[in-house]
């Protein structure tokens, strides 16, 4: 089964660009002590991720309705967001108001959510043949 599809690649590239732009904007705003406006940039970032995930996920499903699309997109999002956050800190682009503990705590709690998603994915697998839900093969 093809795990990294064309649409997942396109989503990942979009996500990398958005995450770097978000990190840059976040650090700039914190540096300028615009603490009250940070939520706006975070909300825009969240909405944009949701939109590109929706578009490319739907395209992926239309091409071939594999049941694990949601999990693959979630895993890619987890890896990209946390990796960029970690690298941002390691190369010293963070401000004095950002600390690595927040990044690690986010990765841990989000990781628990991802693990639950993985367990659901394993259960769904029982109702699929070669990755496609039985109810969707001949519909």
């Amino acid at each position: 089964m093809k795990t990294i599809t064309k649409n997942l690649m396109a989503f990942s590239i979009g996500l990398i660009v958005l995450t770097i732009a978000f990190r840059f904007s976040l650090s700039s705003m914190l540096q300028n002590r615009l603490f009250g406006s940070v939520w706006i940039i975070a909300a825009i970032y969240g909405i944009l991720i949701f939109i590109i995930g929706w578009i490319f996920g739907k395209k992926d499903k239309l091409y071939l309705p594999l049941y694990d699309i949601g999990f693959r997109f979630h895993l890619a999002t987890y890896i990209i967001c946390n990796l960029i956050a970690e690298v941002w800190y390691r190369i010293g682009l963070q401000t004095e108001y950002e600390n690595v503990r927040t990044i690690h705590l986010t990765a841990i709690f989000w990781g628990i959510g991802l693990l639950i998603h993985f367990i659901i994915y394993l259960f769904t697998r029982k109702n699929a043949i070669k990755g496609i839900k039985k109810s969707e093969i001949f519909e």
Partner: protein
Amino acid sequence: MSKNDQLSELLSAWEETYKKGQLTLWIFLSLKDGKKYVDEIKSFVEEQSNHTMTCESQSLYRNLRKYQHVGVVDFETGEGNKGPERKYYFLTGLGLELLNSFIERNINLFFSKQIKNLIISED
């Protein structure tokens, strides 16, 4: 609403639901008839069903991708008419076995004497 209008609406509603589950059978029958590319499958389905079945090429491609993925259909590329290469789809051994089992369990029962008589009887 007149009786004829009601009959027509009920028939359309029933046919709409009935046809949704029929496409796979028609696609498989067209491939049992021989290797075909998408436009030929479309023509076969529409002509052989007396145009009661219609299918969009996009929908056919999507279904064929699924069938190929689960191993009941495969394709080989062949020359098109003065154009790019075409994908000629065919039933795999598993696909043919699946179609035959489906027909045996779900279609052949319509050929029993009792059911046949019920179908042709107008009372």
